[in-house]
């Protein structure tokens, strides 16, 4: 099909032709077209089906407020539903499909819904699908979901990437129409850092859609020249294709830049869109205004659109929606559309004006009256007019422009709880006084609808924002026509007159809502769905509000308006996620021996952001338990090595370092000798255990403290809180050294023999006893730290070197340990050995347990204060029969003992009322040859040897168990001290 509806020239590049397809049919357009303008140029008015009734629909607008012309854009993984054809920039090879139809667009089988419209009115779903409940999931919902809804997703991963970015400026200007350009010019010439953002791909706003001049040039040419000057200023950043989606606290704005949406596919490595966070001192909101329609019977046929949209299509895109056009208006602006179209050679059949004092014209007929109905199955063919004298006229037209007045785009003024105020002259809401701090509104967004006012308002706003002094520079002359509006919202007596075309909400629905008592604006919205979905009621809210006001006998401002929230227009989840998805969802932390562990075929587990070796499978091992059992047995028999770099480490220095540790740990550190290490238990102020670790005293005024891997950050934060907020005069300095040192646990009876091969100093039991620590050197001179501490219960050490040498140290340990069959072990074996030894870990320090529960109540020093001490002494935390940590073993060694299962008495009911405790950590102990667990049991210390039942009703497990000491291995601790 040729482009039958092109009229003359415009801001479209006719020297190049672009091919595109809509519903499988090929068309052509030109650079500068939108999908909607190109389709209209090709004579295509029908672009979609409505949400509920599946009525045929064409575009209502020429901008981002579009409710109707939603298409599925692109194909395959890039298929994108609900894309507004009015904002899609045409590119070669563009592929679009209409949506929300069963069958073809012209013969939508679900248009039967339109016949049942009497049943599908407001509240229909609430009233109808209430009973029986079981029918909802099985019957109603699938049918409704199939019939309703809009486009469909590709259900594939998005192949494109999205960036985020951060910008700083003195002045952010939102909207590049006459007001925005004028503001940018004023601020840019004054040398301020300016960002000018506009959602359109062509800056100029309404100037691109109008015929009137600014100074000597056409409005569009003035805009082009102004944009060129702004582009030449290094302090001005022009951001076309960028929608400011939200105004947030303290001058932070969110903006989505569509970098590659106008291309078939983004260039390799380039993002499709960028989400910018803009920090600005001042903002000029110059977002313009949106024209509103008038409601009457069957006002939703393709070809019926906003008068300003007809004008935009004609002046900017050289497209006539049809060759025969009528206008329905309540103000002078509708006449401007008529004369522009007439000048372009389009037949203006008539202008129907609701006002008694309508302007006359030589070029077209002006009828005083109202459009009361229309005809045309898939597009407008006739409009029925009721004249002021009561007689009827039928207008033969394929397009009808509606001009019900203009609504200033106050959206962003409301994002910080601002409330718009009513302007009776415009019959519209304008920005209130409670704007986001730093924001000034200019031009049509402020209610100044003439071009001259916009130019002046923009300049003034920029000067006010930046505090510019001196005389206001002269502005070019421009159109300064008054609005002359007499409010007219809907034709009386109509019922199936669409207010919200996107959600199929009619005048009748609003009346029904009022009748049934849903009269507040927020109730109206939710009961009828008026103003929901992708357009958020940009063209419909005011109509609904006006009718509700009339029914309630109130003025419009008394009824109120709904609050606008971000985002201004629909925003892809992908751009909110940015690069943080898939493997990049969060950063990874790798230990210094990671590469070595990979070479050994280690299986890794995520612990926070860390990747830790979980176990090291050997050839022939088919089950993780085989590997773990081997690692445990080998370590207890000879020697094993485990990367423990992930433990949090904090350097604590200063003359008050020991006093500081006394404050944060419940046990005492003041008397700890230099070159000694001590276990420490940290309480929260409420007396609950927070974390545990060791503190090694390297010097009188220098400790190295460890935290658990998971709590490294919160514990550090807590330590800084105590240092800065509670003890500000203590001479203590903190810094995290977690990643500064690579640290390995070397455990097992041969661990000393192994380390003696690399440590340069004497580490015999006498020289370096249990809990010793020291700065040492290894391999002939590398600085290192050695701690004789044990998590496994064996003779064990932890050795640390600067991170860069971690890989080399691990390889060295494996090399010199070969004669002892040194075995690398992972977190699973680490866990098994600590359960065998009865050491508490995260499962036990779970945010509900006290030192008393953990069997460490006596550790809380009576000689000093510490965080959590006072509240740990509360009666409720020290009652008889409290939980105590115990060991649990199955009576039948073949039985499992699942963690999380609860302990019940050997006899009696199994229910919550008879709960005795629970298992926290469980494993198979290869040393004992059966499963074991540790857990908490009421009065547990006094119940050793008791037979109980361990039950998990959820997994239907019930095991007979015996309560034991939690120290399954070497309860006397002889191995540690060997």
């Amino acid at each position, binding site marked *: 099909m040729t482009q039958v509806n092109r009229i003359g020239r415009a801001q479209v590049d006719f020297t190049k032709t672009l091919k595109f397809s809509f519903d499988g049919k090929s068309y052509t357009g030109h650079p500068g077209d939108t999908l909607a303008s190109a389709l209209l140029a090709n004579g295509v008015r029908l672009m979609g089906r409505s949400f509920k009734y599946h009525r045929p629909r064409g575009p209502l607008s020429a901008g981002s407020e579009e409710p109707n012309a939603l298409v599925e854009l692109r194909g395959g993984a890039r298929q994108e539903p609900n894309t507004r054809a009015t904002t899609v920039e045409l590119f070669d090879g563009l592929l679009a499909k209409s949506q929300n139809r069963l069958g073809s667009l012209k013969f939508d089988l679900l248009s039967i819904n339109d016949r049942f419209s009497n049943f599908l009115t407001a509240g229909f779903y609430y009233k109808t699908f209430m009973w029986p409940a079981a029918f909802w999931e099985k019957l109603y919902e699938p049918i409704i979901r199939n019939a309703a809804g809009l486009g469909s997703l590709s259900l594939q991963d998005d192949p494109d990437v999205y960036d985020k970015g951060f910008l700083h400026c003195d002045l952010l200007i939102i909207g590049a129409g006459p007001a925005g350009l004028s503001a940018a010019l004023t601020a840019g010439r004054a040398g301020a850092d300016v960002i000018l953002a506009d959602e359109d791909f062509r800056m100029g706003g309404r100037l691109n859609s109008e015929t009137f001049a600014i100074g000597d040039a056409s409005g569009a040419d003035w805009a082009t020249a102004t944009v060129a000057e702004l582009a030449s200023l290094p302090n001005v950043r022009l951001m076309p294709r960028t929608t400011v989606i939200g105004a*947030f*606290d*303290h*001058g*932070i704005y969110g903006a989505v830049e569509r970098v590659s949406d106008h291309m078939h596919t983004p260039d390799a490595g380039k993002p499709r869109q960028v989400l910018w966070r803009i*920090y600005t001192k001042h903002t000029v909101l110059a977002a313009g205004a949106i024209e509103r329609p008038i409601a009457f019977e069957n006002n939703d046929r393709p070809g019926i659109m906003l008068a300003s949209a007809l004008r935009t299509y004609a002046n900017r895109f050289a497209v006539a929606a049809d060759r025969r056009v009528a206008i329905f208006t309540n103000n002078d602006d509708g006449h401007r559309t008529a004369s522009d179209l007439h000048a372009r050679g389009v037949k203006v059949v008539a202008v129907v004006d609701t006002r008694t004092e309508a302007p006359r014209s030589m070029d077209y007929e002006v009828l005083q009256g109202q459009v009361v109905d229309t005809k045309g199955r898939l597009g407008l063919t006739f409009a029925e007019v009721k004249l002021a004298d009561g007689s009827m006229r039928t207008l033969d037209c394929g397009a009808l422009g509606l001009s019900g007045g203009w609504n200033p785009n106050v959206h962003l003024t409301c994002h910080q*709880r601002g409330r718009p105020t009513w302007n009776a002259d415009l019959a519209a809401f304008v920005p209130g006084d409670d704007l986001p*701090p730093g924001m000034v509104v200019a031009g049509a967004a402020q209610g100044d609808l003439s071009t001259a006012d916009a130019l002046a308002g923009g300049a003034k706003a920029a000067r006010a924002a930046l505090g510019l002094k001196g005389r206001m520079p002269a502005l070019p002359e421009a159109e300064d026509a008054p609005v002359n509006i007499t409010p007219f919202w809907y034709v009386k007596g109509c019922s199936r007159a669409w207010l919200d075309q996107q959600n199929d909400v009619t005048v009748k629905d609003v009346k029904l809502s009022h009748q049934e008592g849903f009269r507040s604006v927020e109730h109206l919205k939710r009961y009828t769905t008026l103003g929901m979905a992708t357009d958020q009621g940009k063209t419909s809210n005011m109509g609904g509000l006006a009718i509700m006001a009339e029914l309630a006998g109130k003025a419009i401002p008394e009824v109120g308006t709904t609050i606008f929230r971000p985002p201004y227009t629909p925003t892809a989840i992908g751009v909110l996620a940015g690069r943080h998805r898939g493997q990049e969802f969060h950063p990874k932390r790798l230990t210094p021996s990671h590469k070595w562990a990979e070479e050994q075929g280690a299986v890794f587990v995520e612990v926070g952001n860390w990747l830790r070796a979980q176990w090291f499978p050997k050839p022939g091992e088919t089950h993780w338990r085989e590997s773990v059992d081997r690692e445990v047995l080998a370590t207890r028999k000879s020697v094993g090595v485990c990367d423990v770099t992930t433990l949090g480490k904090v350097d604590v220095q200063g003359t*008050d370092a020991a*006093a500081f540790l006394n404050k944060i740990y419940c046990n005492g550190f003041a008397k700890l000798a230099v070159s000694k290490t001590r276990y420490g238990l940290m309480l929260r*102020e*409420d007396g609950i255990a927070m974390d545990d670790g060791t503190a090694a005293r390297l010097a009188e005024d220098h400790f190295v403290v460890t935290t658990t891997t998971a709590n490294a*950050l919160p514990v550090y*934060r807590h330590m*800084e*809180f105590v240092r*800065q*907020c*509670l*003890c*500000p*005069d*203590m001479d203590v300095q903190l810094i995290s050294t977690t990643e500064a040192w690579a640290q390995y646990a070397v455990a097992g009876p041969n661990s000393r023999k192994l380390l003696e091969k690399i440590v340069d100093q004497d580490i015999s039991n006498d020289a370096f006893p249990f809990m010793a620590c020291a700065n040492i050197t290894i391999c002939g001179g590398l600085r290192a730290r050695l701690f004789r501490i044990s998590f496994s219960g064996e003779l064990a050490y932890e050795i640390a070197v600067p991170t860069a040498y971690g890989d080399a140290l691990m390889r060295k340990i494996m090399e010199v340990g070969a004669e002892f069959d040194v075995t690398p072990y992972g977190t699973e074996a680490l866990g098994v050995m600590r359960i065998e030894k009865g050491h508490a870990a995260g499962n036990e320090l779970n945010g509900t347990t006290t030192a008393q529960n953990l069997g460490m109540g006596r550790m809380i020093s009576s000689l000093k*204060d510490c965080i959590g*001490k*006072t*509240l740990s*002494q*509360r009666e409720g935390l020290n009652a008889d029969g409290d939980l105590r940590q115990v060991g649990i073993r199955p009576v039948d060694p073949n039985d499992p003992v699942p963690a999380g299962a609860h302990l019940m008495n050997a006899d009696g009911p199994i229910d919550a009322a008879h709960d005795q405790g629970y298992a926290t950590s469980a494993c198979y102990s290869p040393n004992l040859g059966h499963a074991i667990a540790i857990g908490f049991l009421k009065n547990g210390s006094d119940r050793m040897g008791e037979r109980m039942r361990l039950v998990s009703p959820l997994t239907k497990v019930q095991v007979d168990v015996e309560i034991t000491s939690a120290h399954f291995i070497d309860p006397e601790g002889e191995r540690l001290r060997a």
Partner: protein
Amino acid sequence: MIIDHPLLGPRDSSEFTYMGDAKLIDRPDPDADTAARDFYEYGYLRDNPAGWHDELWFHEAGDRSWLVVTRNTLTHEISKVQLARDVARNRGRSK
């Protein structure tokens, strides 16, 4: 939000961790006769005003300072930002 750090100037609130009521600085005397009651109130009874509130924020992704931020919880307006260490000293805390 933007927090105007007393040393570093305006910083995005995303760099901070929030801990609520700055009364947490006023840790009670553990040796007082009323210590049990005092700590109970300190630990559990916090104001949650709709309006101006002194709050603790930790500049975790910054200089690791604890700050006392005076913020209006209704409008997010911030009227004052101080180093918590200075506040603590002014309130008589020492070692």
